């Protein structure tokens, strides 16, 4: 058998995609790449095509989804949630949840420790059954079946929901299949008629954001639950339902769900009669058709980005081209376990030496990236440029870096190893650009591209790299889904793994307390200030060095109407409002 691709080849790309969870908001319009749109009349009918791309949808089970594309599309077409974001590109409006299946946006009287939602009476599943409070409770309970419901953002409920942990570090409730610890869950989540109450062990002020961005709090039908076998089964409560089966690698067709009542839904316009999801095409294949605007592609939209090789053809299709800033940030991390970078002066020298402009140039230029000045994406509410990085030129400051390196305790020349996710010409060129800037400041950089084993290696606490690479996007528009997952040593560092804290950063009591305080702040604006302080501290410690923010370049078909890249769906195409000409 000839298997030519290496295992994990997809992982480099997945590094971004893994962080594809919801985000948005805060985009204060400083990018002039405002999302384009065709302003056709909002006529119903026709078949729209969504090119799902080469990366297969792994789960359609709402509790297992964790990929931004799937979270967005399912939320716009067939999974309604307690609350949802309106279809808007206004940075505030587009990231402020409004009631969806619930009658309100949730109420809490104790600063986020108890959340209550009331479910509408007039909403139905695709088979005509009413959506009940119990369905929501059952949906939430599925997150705890860690042996069946794998892959989703279950850890948020593990962290917040008021269920004690067992010796294994996991909640004592084991989910609805084994029912072990069921009484604990029944206490934490209760139904009173159509009113559901979630009880937390610590305040969760932005829980509605989580409910709107992710699908893990969506309702689920206990009577139809077949566990893992339901991975690709879609039990719709939105305007479309799956026609027949979903075929992995090929896709599926969504048709109108007659049991969806437009009057109950303020968000979804549901213009096309059908949505055809086409899976497995390579980016080049999709964009060959998109640029030629041939056949079905006239009705097509996609979340795949235009490959750089097509950039020079963009002027031909300006009216169908849109450009938006992505919700991700890429950065490099000094390894705090390395003999060199345990010394702050050495880290500062690296920071000053880093030429992010060269990195961007090597990666495709300004169409592909824009410089970043924090690990937090500017679209996240409360974003500030990190003062530690704001004043350094994008090209770096080699002279200052050289001077700083004099203070570095490591023997000169300072030999460092840069381990990165390599294997493509672009990633290798980018790494070489960084090496050049570091070496110019007096480092002696060894490049260590890893392909298959990248994550396995850098997640090992005793790995011998000095610098590595990472990328991240917020799960929902809150810095609380950026900084703690990346730098809270308490949740990341264990004996066998550093989690997402690849640089093995250990903030200590001071930082831990700052994080806890920011989490505990019920007022989201006040919390944003506290997070900014945490970020500033990370900058002082040089826990990371921000590089850039990916820019999305999209094209859509000529017969697509109402095309919009909304912040409510992280800048992707908003399928809630898109239609096609008949």
């Amino acid at each position, binding site marked *: 058998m000839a298997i030519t691709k290496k295992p*994990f080849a997809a992982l480099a790309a997945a590094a971004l995609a893994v962080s594809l969870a919801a985000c948005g908001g805060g985009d204060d319009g400083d990018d002039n790449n405002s999302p384009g749109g065709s302003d056709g009349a909002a006529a119903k009918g026709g078949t729209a095509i969504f090119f799902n791309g080469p990366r297969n949808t792994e789960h359609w089970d709402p509790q*297992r989804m964790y990929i931004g594309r799937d979270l967005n599309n399912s939320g716009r077409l067939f999974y309604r949630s307690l609350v949802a974001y309106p279809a808007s590109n206004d940075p505030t409006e587009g990231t402020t949840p409004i009631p969806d299946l619930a009658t309100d946006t949730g109420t809490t009287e104790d600063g986020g420790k108890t959340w209550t939602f009331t479910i509408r009476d007039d909403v139905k599943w695709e088979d005509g059954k009413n959506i009940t409070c119990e369905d929501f409770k059952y949906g939430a309970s599925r997150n705890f079946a860690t*042996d069946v419901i794998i892959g989703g953002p279950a*850890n948020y409920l593990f962290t917040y929901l008021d269920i004690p942990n067992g010796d294994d*570090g*996991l909640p004592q409730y084991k989910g609805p299949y084994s029912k072990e610890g069921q009484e604990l869950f029944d206490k934490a989540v209760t139904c009173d008629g159509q009113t559901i109450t979630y009880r937390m062990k610590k305040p969760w002020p932005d829980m509605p954001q989580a409910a709107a961005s992710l699908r893990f709090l969506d309702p689920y039908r206990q009577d139809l639950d077949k566990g893992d076998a339901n991975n690709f089964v879609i039990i719709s409560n939105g305007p479309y339902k799956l026609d027949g089966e979903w075929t992995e690698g090929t896709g599926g067709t969504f048709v109108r769900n007659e049991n969806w009542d437009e009057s109950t839904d303020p968000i979804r316009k549901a213009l096309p009669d059908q949505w055809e999801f086409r899976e497995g095409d*390579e980016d080049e294949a999709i964009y060959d058709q998109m640029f030629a605007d041939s056949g079905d592609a006239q009705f097509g939209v996609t979340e795949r980005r235009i490959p750089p090789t097509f950039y020079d053809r963009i002027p031909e299709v300006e009216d169908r081209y849109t450009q938006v800033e992505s919700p991700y940030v890429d950065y490099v991390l000094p390894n705090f376990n390395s003999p060199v970078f345990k010394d702050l002066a050495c880290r500062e020298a690296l920071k000053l030496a880093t030429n992010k402009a060269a990195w961007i140039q090597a990666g495709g230029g300004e169409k592909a990236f824009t410089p970043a000045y924090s690990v937090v994406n500017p679209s996240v509410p409360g974003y500030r440029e990190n003062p530690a990085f704001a004043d350094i030129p994008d090209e770096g400051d080699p002279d200052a870096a050289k001077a700083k390196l004099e203070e570095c305790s490591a023997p000169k020349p300072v030999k460092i190893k840069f381990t990165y996710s390599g294997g493509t010409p672009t990633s290798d060129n980018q790494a070489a650009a960084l090496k050049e800037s570091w070496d110019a400041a007096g480092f002696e950089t060894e490049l260590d591209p890893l392909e298959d084993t990248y994550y396995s290696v850098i997640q090992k606490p005793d790995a011998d790299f000095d610098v590595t690479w990472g990328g991240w996007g917020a799960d929902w528009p809150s810095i609380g889904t950026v900084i703690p*997952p990346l730098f809270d040593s308490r*949740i990341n560092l264990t004996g066998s793994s550093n989690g997402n804290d690849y640089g093995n950063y250990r903030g200590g009591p001071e930082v831990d307390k700052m994080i806890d305080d920011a989490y505990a702040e019920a007022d989201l604006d006040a919390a944003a200030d506290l997070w900014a302080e945490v970020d500033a501290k990370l900058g002082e410690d040089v826990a990371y060095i921000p590089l850039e923010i990916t820019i999305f370049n999209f094209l859509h078909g000529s017969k697509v109407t109402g095309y919009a890249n909304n912040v409510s769906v992280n800048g992707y195409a908003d399928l809630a409002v898109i239609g096609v000409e008949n």
Partner: protein
Amino acid sequence: MIAYVVRRLFAGVILLVVMSIVTFALFFASPINPADFSCGKNCSAEQKEQVSRALGFEDSWVTQWGKFAKGVFVGRDFPDDPELRKTAPETIAHCPAPCLGYSRERTSTVTDLIKDTLPVSLSIAVVAFFFWIVGGVLLGVTAALRRGTIVDRGLVGISLVLYAFPTFFIGLLLYKFVAVQWGWVDVPRYTTIEDGGISGWLSGLLLPGITLAVFFMAGYVRMTRAYVLESFSEDYVRTARAKGLPKRTVTFKHALRAALTPIVTMAGLDFAGLMGGAIITESVFNYPGLGKLAVLANSDFDLPTLVGLVILLATFVIIANIIVDLLYAVIDPRVRLS
């Protein structure tokens, strides 16, 4: 003859057993934890451990191979958890014998995955096989019969060029120009005979079939040419000429018959190899066949699917080998099956 086939099949089964063991062993020798792929981001170490257990990767590979082998004969339940069988039997998937495993990644038994993907690969292979055998052999014979002429040089040159082009390049060219730019054919999409009829099925297969055929055809032109030329220098062909047989008879009855024997062998084995070897073509045209499945399974470390595919493709090759040998015995009276 039956004894021969039985003996060969038995040897084939042993080979399959060995290959499945090797696949398991190699998989577990890798430093990569399959749970990394399933667990999602923000996955704590504890969760990862749980996932690993749920995927069945906690057992030693020997135990897991044992379970796999048993499943082939008696079927298996996934997950095979007596507790769960009591509390939530509806969540257990049964995989009837012969069970090649259950892919958690794809939420399907491997047997079902193969059922879905095999017809696609088979279709491409059949169409490609047709083009490459007809084209390759005819052109190869033509080149040999016109040896040294411009026709010969042209054919040999073109086939050398085509042979040198990577398959994905030819595929992309066809895709880009024939389908997208010029619109001569629809953008190829796999259509079953049930859905599209023979013509729908065939029109979808035209470009992938040609893409795949081009590479093989180029090789077969050169190979056929070489074998035919070689056979022309055989003593028995000289005898045939010395008898006064017309050129046609000499060429087609005496020379080609002998020349084509090794080509039959090659074609049989290539066809079997093609079943899983059309990876690039299937990827370029996004055809959900075995090759594409293999790539996906490989990229997300889907052991059950990989093992199933290894077994399946090895079976093809083994069976093709036996058929080719039987065929050989039919063609060449000197060959004795023993």
